[in-house]
């Protein structure tokens, strides 16, 4: 992290300079026309993934990203039961939304303000399982916080992934500010921010969307609507059906997407990205999804939802759904799946091994970095 900071010191920015050339077109083969991504086009003969301009490699990468997230997530719960980590907050069930967005953004160029449930996003963007595990186990090398923050409070300067805090929804106006910085600087970076359904009830949501819309900022607001804010169901959080409908209040597009449909999420993410990149302003995306686990390892969800409800959603699992799709498309075999799983497991094993062996932060470091140290930014 020290070196990241030094980079930052040079260009007076906390975010390292982009490593790739600016491209108005996002990841994917050249020449994919905009209309190819429009919804109506999906009815044509070519398979959906081709229409979306994705390569087989892209699909395999996305599949791996879903799996590594789930595998790591499950491992962390295991570690928690073993008493090796005090706190878990899980993304299980929401992987497709996060992997879909990760695919649509230009890592290291665009800016991301994630939230505590962004594990799959984080991994898909390129935080390594080992880095995640160092964070989860609060080790000195934890690149997100040096063990200072709770697990899942991600942040990684080299990915332009801005440090997460616990207070819900504070990232929203910050993302608007990042979008404003792009406007002032005249760059073409898109800023993405992620928040839960509960977080949209806070005034920050209103203030952020209002600000972003007034200035037509390149910001994509992604709501991962998993139906609950801890125990409070969306029906007690708001009086309307779709959070995305609130976009009307800001004169920006609001899109509802099935958050468990990876390709559809990717399509929506790409459209919002392109719109932002073209300077046409912000988009509000609501991904309808579900969390399988209790809110966190401190929660007991049996107090507020039924096993049946959870099971029902487990049947709509975004990973098996994508798996089936790949199988139907003849893009993957059962054996290949197994080998991807094995690869994910190995990566997680290795991450755990490394992180468990890594040293804890030492007490004498507690006073560091309250303010910039001599000669630092």
């Amino acid at each position, binding site marked *: 992290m020290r070196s990241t900071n030094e980079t930052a010191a040079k260009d007076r920015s906390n975010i390292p300079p982009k490593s790739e050339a600016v491209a108005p077109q996002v990841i994917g083969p050249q020449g994919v026309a905009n209309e190819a991504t429009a919804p109506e086009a999906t009815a044509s003969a070519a398979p959906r993934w081709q229409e979306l301009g994705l390569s087989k490699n892209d699909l395999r990468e996305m599949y791996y990203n879903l799996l590594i997230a789930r595998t790591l997530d499950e491992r962390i719960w295991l570690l928690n039961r073993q008493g090796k980590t005090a706190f878990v907050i899980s993304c299980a069930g929401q992987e497709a939304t996060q992997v879909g967005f990760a695919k649509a953004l230009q890592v290291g160029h665009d800016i991301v303000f994630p939230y505590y449930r962004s594990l799959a996003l984080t991994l898909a963007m390129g935080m390594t399982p080992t880095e995640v595990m160092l964070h989860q186990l609060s080790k000195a090398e934890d690149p997100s916080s040096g063990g200072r923050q709770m697990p899942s409070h991600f942040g990684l300067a080299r990915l332009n992934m801005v440090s997460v805090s616990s207070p819900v929804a504070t990232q929203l106006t910050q993302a608007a500010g990042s979008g404003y910085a792009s406007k002032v600087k005249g760059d073409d970076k898109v800023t993405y921010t992620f928040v839960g359904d509960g977080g949209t009830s806070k005034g920050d949501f209103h203030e952020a969307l209002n600000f972003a819309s007034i200035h037509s900022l390149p910001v994509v607001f992604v709501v991962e609507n998993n139906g609950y804010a*801890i125990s409070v169901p969306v029906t007690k959080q708001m009086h309307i059906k779709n959070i995305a409908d609130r976009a009307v209040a800001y004169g920006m597009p609001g899109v509802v997407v099935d958050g468990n449909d990876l390709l559809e999420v990717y399509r929506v993410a790409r459209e919002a990205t392109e719109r932002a990149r073209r300077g046409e302003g912000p988009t509000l995306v609501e991904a309808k999804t579900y969390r399988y686990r209790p809110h966190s390892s401190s929660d007991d969800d049996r107090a507020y939802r039924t096993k049946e409800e959870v099971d029902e959603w487990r049947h709509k699992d975004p990973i098996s759904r994508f798996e089936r799709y790949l199988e139907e498309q003849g893009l993957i075999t059962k054996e290949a799946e197994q080998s991807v799983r094995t690869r994910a497991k190995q990566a997680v094993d290795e991450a755990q091994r490394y992180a468990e062996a890594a040293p804890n932060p030492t007490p004498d470091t507690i006073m560091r970095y309250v303010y910039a140290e001599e000669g630092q930014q």
Partner: protein
Amino acid sequence: MPVKTVLEAVREALFEEMRRDENVFVLGEDVGQRGGVFRATEGLQKEFGELRVLDTPLAESAIAGVAIGAAVRGMRPVAEFQFADFIHPAVEQIIDEAARFRYRSNNAFSCPVVFRAPYGGGVQGGMYHSQSVEAMFAMWPGLKVVTPSFPYDYKGLLKAAIRDNDPVVFLEHKKTYNFPSIKQEIPAGDYIVPLGKANVVKEGTKLSVFAYGMMLHQSLQAARTLEAEGTSVEVVDLRTLRPLDKETILNSVRKTGRAMIVHEANLFGGFGGEIAAIIAEEAFEWLDAPVRRVAGPDVPGMPFALPLEEEFMPNPAKIAQAMRQLAAY
């Protein structure tokens, strides 16, 4: 008498007050079906229904504002902030509105809301689930700020806070909630512990320690160690920070001639400064040694990793060491 935890005492106070007065109602995030993330409101919704035990949206400013608006209408809202760390969005409502309603209207309106919030660390809550916010609220006239330490006081003070005609910030140290050794026998029925009165929980002659919340217990333990070493330490549980019981504080210092304040919040700008200042101004002639503060280090949050958290927290050993130094001055 049944033995209760701090958490049980809080819950019992809520049950009894809601039965006593139908204007009392509880609102906050997850306080209903879930019974609160710490279970302080468990069972309330079952007995009193959804209207009086209300799960709010995730919007702290609204939690406070709604409570204030209802209070102006004669209700007695008890608003829960899930963690004291998340009370910040409600600061405007609490200090500009609740605290000022009576004064700004020249006594025509008042605002009897209780703002409950679990505070403090030592539970691996990390930077955003461990904050101590007492100094931030104790500085505003119009508010009362209560920080009990023992189950008996929790129950009696929470009842007093609910019946008080002015807004009260009621801070519950989350580490004490279920702490086994903090259990206490408390009466099942109604009783009140008046706001604004400190309590000398241990008499002593050589030095006076002022504390509240978890740090009161840690100080008490340190005081026992010192006692065993032959140094008699008086321990005062402040219980209410505003209005502060200056008299009890000054009497104690006048007796012992040495004063120590212990809190978990950051040292600089913490509430200890106010106590030290009062002592330095009003008990100057009695002081045999400098007023000593033991507090959390000046870092922007309690780190999560255990070695760092332990480094942050004042504990009986650190406090005892400071006591020895002060006694030897």
